[in-house]
């Protein structure tokens, strides 16, 4: 749990200060995907609540949207695992992280749309999604091995 909390603090305060708020560096999503793919459902749900909670604390609007998304993400990955698609390969892990991060941004846009009543999809938002996706691909690709060791521990180590 401390691992997810640290990732959330790093995402909100440290990486947020570097990127200047426009582009989210979705560390929490990547770590929740890793835990959901490599550990038990119970632990993954707990990680989703903890990671989501810290994102909620740092966010101003739509309290609950991040926790709900991360729980749904864990449940989705669980279905994925039951179908026999385990996140043991780097390529598959990167693809799942990428789709999850994209869905996360779209999910938040939908919540904003519900909150504000009207919202558009300007070209700048597509640019933000491209930038966020590139960063997610890079981070998940580079850290896959370490995450597998850290998250899965003896199961895969």
């Amino acid at each position, binding site marked *: 749990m401390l691992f997810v909390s640290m990732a959330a603090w790093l995402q909100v*305060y440290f990486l947020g200060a570097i990127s*200047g708020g426009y582009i989210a560096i979705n560390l929490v999503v990547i770590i929740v995907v890793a835990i959901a793919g490599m550990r038990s459902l119970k632990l993954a749900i707990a990680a989703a609540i903890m990671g989501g909670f810290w994102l909620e604390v740092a966010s*101003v609007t739509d309290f609950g949207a991040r926790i709900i998304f991360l729980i749904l993400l864990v449940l989705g990955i669980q279905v994925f695992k039951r179908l026999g698609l385990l996140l043991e390969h780097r390529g598959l892990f990167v693809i799942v992280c990428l789709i999850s991060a994209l869905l996360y941004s779209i999910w938040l846009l939908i919540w904003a749309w519900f909150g504000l009543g009207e919202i558009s999809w*300007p070209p700048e938002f597509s640019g933000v999604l491209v930038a966020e996706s590139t960063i997610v691909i890079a981070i998940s690709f580079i850290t896959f091995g370490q995450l597998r060791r850290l998250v899965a521990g003896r199961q895969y180590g």
Partner: protein
Amino acid sequence: MRRLSRRRKLLISIVMLLVLVVGGATGWLPIHKVAFQAFSPIGNILNKSGVRLSRAFDELGQLGSLGRQIDELEGENLSLNSRLSQLSELEAENSQLRNQLGYAARSKVQTISVEVVNFQPDGVRQFVHINKGESDGIRKGAVVIDGDALVGRVIDVSGGSAVVMLVNDPEFRVLVGNQNGTTTGIVKGQPGGAVIMERIQKNQNLHTNDTIVTSGLDGEFPKGLVLGKVESITESNDGIFLVANIAISADLRRVRLVQVVR
């Protein structure tokens, strides 16, 4: 028996989660403020490290363009460069504070200098937390500026911190006009950080590169705060009005020190 116990555990967890989400969303549980205040010391340390790293990247970029000049200066050496990089951090802060005096000195309004603690961690909404609050004289609705430029407004205040909605948030609205007063419209933010000016009458005289300032007509923002410059002008979807894309003056990606108008 064992099954029932597991079910109970699950039920309790779901109820607790619902209380957390509903309580936080409706505001009857002050989770947000309490947790934010409690963890702000860790946040401050991480944020300052992030700001330093960000500045180091900026300086690296500047060094590239200064490369040619450095070659021409025979006497310059590495020790001078390293001293310069230490000083430039302080210099950037000083020049920002000097710039901020612009609007405050001209209009004789009282302002409070504040630091940005963290940004909203997604690209849809645009908020920042600042390190001063009610106990420092900051009130809800106060206007936030960076020199002559409008940054946003305070939407929530607690004892030692406050939340600022930035001008590029999709919920932000302000009545504006161009600097020579020939055009009026409404500026609002967009997901992804862009800013547009809407409700511009077709017969009004607006050109690219016109400076857009607050009109003061809404009674919420003082007149004359700079929003930015017109980048492009297109027709609105309904064909009745014009829509202008605005390049905002305040560098919201790098905003660290701002002023709150009392």
